[in-house]
């Protein structure tokens, strides 16, 4: 099973598009290496802008380019892009409605042992709270490809968060169900609905397999479109289940869990359990070690689901 990092897939899709679309511009803040964008910079130097380690500049320059007809893709670590340049994202991108796609690389706890300065547990809540800012967190490289192809067709602001490392695919090459702003139903069941995004979709899918062996049937939704949240899919999945679990590589506040809870609470009240990173500096370790420690893995999700529907 081939796998590449989602960020690398973003670069590949943009390079393919840039062959014929000279308005595509990629920008990095000394992040072309970490963002897998060196091939883009080398192949299309006239369509690449380096801003140096200056994320505020990165985002404002992107907005200025976009205002003059460019399709700007600003690639920078999610931890900095979603905080250091937050106001530029709010004013120059979202408020001014410029065609800027903010690509937050190495999101969540991708930088593992580098510590809280390099984690971006807050990015979903922060970006989703900005009017006119969309938030996408694709699960695997195949879905990332479809997402970026779809984003190339619109002219609206968006924040896209991807992880650092290649992850096991959720989908199969040639069979990637994808509709823009619609959650992907990974599997359907009647006992519990598991709604996940990003790197948490694969463990959620694996959890459904574990639960099946225990006689528990689960729906798994890949909510890559955290904002606009696919409310219909949430309601449908919740209505068909006894309880709902959300799983995200993010802070417990203001992210996928909060948004799903709002919808379920108002539309089809059920018990909703939010699985997330803690409201505390995350323990030191690799992504996998961190996920395992906080139960953000297939076993942890399955265990939580089994307790819920018991």
């Amino acid at each position, binding site marked *: 099973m081939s796998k590449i990092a989602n960020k690398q897939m973003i670069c590949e899709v943009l390079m393919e598009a840039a062959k014929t679309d000279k308005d595509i*511009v990629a920008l990095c803040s000394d992040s072309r290496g970490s963002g897998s964008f060196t091939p883009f910079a080398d192949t299309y130097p*006239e*369509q690449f*802008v380096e*801003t*140096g380690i*200056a994320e*505020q*500049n990165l985002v*404002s*320059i*992107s*907005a*200025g*380019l*976009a*205002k*003059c*007809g*460019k399709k*700007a893709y600003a690639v920078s670590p999610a931890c900095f892009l979603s905080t250091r340049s937050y*106001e*530029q994202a709010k*004013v*120059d991108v979202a*408020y*001014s*409605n410029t065609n800027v796609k903010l690509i937050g690389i190495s999101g969540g706890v991708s930088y593992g042992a580098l510590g809280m300065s390099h984690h971006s547990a807050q990015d979903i809540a922060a970006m989703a709270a900005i009017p006119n800012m969309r938030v996408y967190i694709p699960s695997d490289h195949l879905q990332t490809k479809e997402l970026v192809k779809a984003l190339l067709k619109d002219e609206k602001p968006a924040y896209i968060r991807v992880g650092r490392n290649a992850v096991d695919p959720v989908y199969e090459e040639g069979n990637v169900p994808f509709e823009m702003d619609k959650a992907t139903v990974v599997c359907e069941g009647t006992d519990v609905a598991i709604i996940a995004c990003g790197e948490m979709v694969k463990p959620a899918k694996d959890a459904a397999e574990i639960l099946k062996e225990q006689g528990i049937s689960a729906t798994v939704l890949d909510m890559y479109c955290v904002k606009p949240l696919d409310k219909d899919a949430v309601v449908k999945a919740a209505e068909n289940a006894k309880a709902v679990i959300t799983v995200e590589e993010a802070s417990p506040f203001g992210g996928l869990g909060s948004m799903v809870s709002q919808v379920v609470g108002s539309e089809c009240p059920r018990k909703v359990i939010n699985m997330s990173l803690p409201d505390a500096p995350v323990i030191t370790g690799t992504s996998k070690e961190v996920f395992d420690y906080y139960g953000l893995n297939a076993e942890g999700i399955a265990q939580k689901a089994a307790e819920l529907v018991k």
Partner: protein
Amino acid sequence: MENLTALSYDLRKDVIEIICAGKAGHIGGDMSVIDTLITLYFKQMNISPENMDDPNRDRFVMSKGHSVEALYAVLAKKGFFTLEEVLENFSKFGSKFIGHPNNKLPGIEMNSGSLGHGLPVCVGMALAGKMNHQDYRVYTVMGDGELAEGSVWEGAMAASHYKLDNLCAVVDRNRLQISGNTEDVMHHDDLHERFRSFGWNVIDVKDGNSIDELNAAFDEAKTVKGKPTVLIANTVKGCGSPVMENKAAWHHHVPSEEEYTQIMKDLEARKEAALHE
């Protein structure tokens, strides 16, 4: 050619009317910056309601967005909308005429209001012009208090790195900000040297409220190749009437009836003087 100095006093009157109608406004900065705006919109930039969607139009971003009333007066005079529309709607419920620039209005490219955004955005606009081999020019106006924002210097750094000679910034150097004298709040007395050290061409405009001096400086900026230019426009905050000139308290102030009468009288007198110069 219309006497633009006389016009500047008429537009200052419009600004006073806008502020009194909306019961809000950054009056002091409006009065210091309006000559820069008039010079840009009536002498320098190829921008009008007819070509506002032309990719080759010159671009302007009002970085010191709080001086929006001056921009409204100038854009109304240019015909992007009418002064009556502004007077009726400014700061009112549901209005598009907000207290900071809003690009839902014709003639306004970018929303601003938070300081330190205009220059970096203009770097992007100027870069796009270079990439597309277009010859439009990009202008922005910043306040001197605004220069304390770090993002200004990120933009300044990139503008010279990319040799953006199609970019011209103006510093409305009126030496006052909301808390008082700029040099007391955070000093900028070596401003020219700062910009030079960032690789910029610096032009000092001795009287930043002189349209002739500003126009000559903008003309000079166009001849400078390989680097961006900044005009340090030495202006008077509240320029137009002694009632408001050089008074920090007039950063944001709505004139009383008495003040209104005196200011209008002073503006009319200066207009008359300009006409008979």
